[in-house]
């Protein structure tokens, strides 16, 4: 319950081969360091869930961690394609990647249902699109009062939900501000959870726009300064736009990617 742990230990306890894992963060507060720790620990056959798979998921997919991706927009934001994702989808490299595709509204509502303990969510969405034919997880539902037909999507309840945030106190209460996306929903929807934070402080002083997750709603908190890089943590860091640019070249080529993986992610100094 909000136990403060080392990143390595938290990931070792939470992530297992075959798990459904969601790393969330809408451009802001993306738990990149946690994703790379999953790579280092060699997890396989994961079902990766994320509204906006970007660099960290490209890395995890390229490293062969994933069997399936559930998502709504997969790209390198502002740059272009995710080459490791495309290589997996189009060529099955390094392993085939099954996909389940939604819209943002659908994914967001799937987390909402998951957080609310409901098996499904209702929205006005998907109607008339070809997405409907591609997944059994989009179904019509009829309003019992008006007879109107709307769309239902099933709840997401990942085995592990991971987000980054600005701060936690020593009891494991987490504070975050700025764009918080589906942070609250993914933590509450997941069976177990990890929040990586920029720092652990004695006291969380109230801030405009800040949201608190109580320690008892979180499994682990890990202090990982810069853990969102190349994404950012408002008040702590800026988005590293150059990294997003540079990723394009690294990820285009399997060898370049493998070299990057071997040189950058794998040899992280281990305590």
């Amino acid at each position, binding site marked *: 319950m909000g136990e403060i742990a080392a990143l390595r230990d938290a990931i070792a306890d939470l992530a297992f081969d075959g798990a459904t894992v969601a790393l969330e963060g809408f*451009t*802001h507060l993306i738990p990149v360091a946690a994703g790379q720790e999953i790579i280092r620990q060699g997890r396989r056959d994961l079902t990766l869930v994320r509204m906006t798979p970007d660099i960290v998921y490209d890395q995890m997919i390229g490293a062969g961690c994933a069997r399936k991706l559930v998502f*709504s927009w997969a790209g390198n934001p502002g740059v272009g394609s995710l080459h490791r994702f*495309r290589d997996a989808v189009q060529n099955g490299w390094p392993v085939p990647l099954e996909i389940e595709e939604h*819209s943002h509204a659908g994914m*967001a509502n799937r987390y909402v249902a998951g957080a609310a303990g409901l098996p499904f969510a209702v*929205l006005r969405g998907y109607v008339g699109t*070809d997405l409907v034919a591609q997944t059994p997880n989009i179904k019509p539902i009829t309003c019992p009062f008006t007879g109107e037909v709307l769309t239902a999507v099933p709840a997401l309840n990942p085995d592990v939900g991971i987000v980054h945030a600005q701060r936690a106190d020593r009891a494991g209460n987490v504070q975050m501000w700025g764009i918080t996306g589906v942070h609250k929903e993914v933590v509450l929807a997941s069976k177990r959870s990890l929040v990586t934070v920029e720092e652990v402080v004695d006291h969380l002083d109230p801030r405009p726009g800040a949201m608190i997750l109580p320690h008892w709603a979180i499994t682990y908190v890990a202090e990982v300064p810069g853990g969102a890089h190349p994404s950012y943590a408002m008040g702590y860091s800026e988005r590293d736009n150059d990294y997003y640019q540079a990723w394009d070249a690294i990820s285009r080529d399997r060898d370049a990617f493998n070299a990057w993986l071997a040189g950058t992610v794998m040899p992280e100094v281990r305590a």
Partner: protein
Amino acid sequence: MSWSADEMMTIAAARALRDGARCFVGIGRPSTAANLARRTHAPDLVLIYESGTIGAKPGTLPLSIGDGVLAETADTVVSVPEIFNYWLQPGRIDVGFLGAAQIDRYGNINTTVIGDDYRSPRVRLPGAGGAPEIAASCREVIVIVKQSPRAFVERVDFVTSVGYGSGPGDRARLGLTGRGPALVITDLGILEPDPETAELTLTQVHPGVDPAQASAATGWPLAIAGTLGTTPAPTAAELAALRELNRQAGPEEAR
């Protein structure tokens, strides 16, 4: 003063935004156009990004949909579920601004896959993002896309976001509450749905563009309005504002 076709496209898009309108903005060209509008004729344009920032007033062009400058300058920042459920879905947004990899005769948009086989696509694109519900629920939609036979196709390979479906009446049949694509703004001119047939029709060309160019850049026999307008040339003020925006933002490929 000279300008590029790209600049004309962005300026034409900016002009289409009424001051005070609430605009759901995608990153890239739509964001550039919306921010240009706010700096020229529409200072009270309300910019809404799907990251949850409502009323963002960025001093520089954001490079991502979730840049800090959006949160810092917004009237309020809400969660992603809230932006879709409370703000987009009920039809509170006047204009949705979309791009497209493919767009067809009836304004349907594809940003998912190129090729016939979804499971084994020729090109895997990023996917839907917020677009299906933006296209469904905004009071109207403006599409910005460069005109070419590859992009302007008779029928999109995959309907990511519905325009007019297969023709008039389809939106109502599907229960879509918004009006659909009102304008498709390209580097050559402007297309609007025909009031009778809902078919995208060239209603305006940018200065110096021959309608035949637009036809050649379209993958179906392009209907051309009887009275074809010409887009007024960019003003010096518009060009200056756009170039200043782009200069601050750095190289375009970074966006």
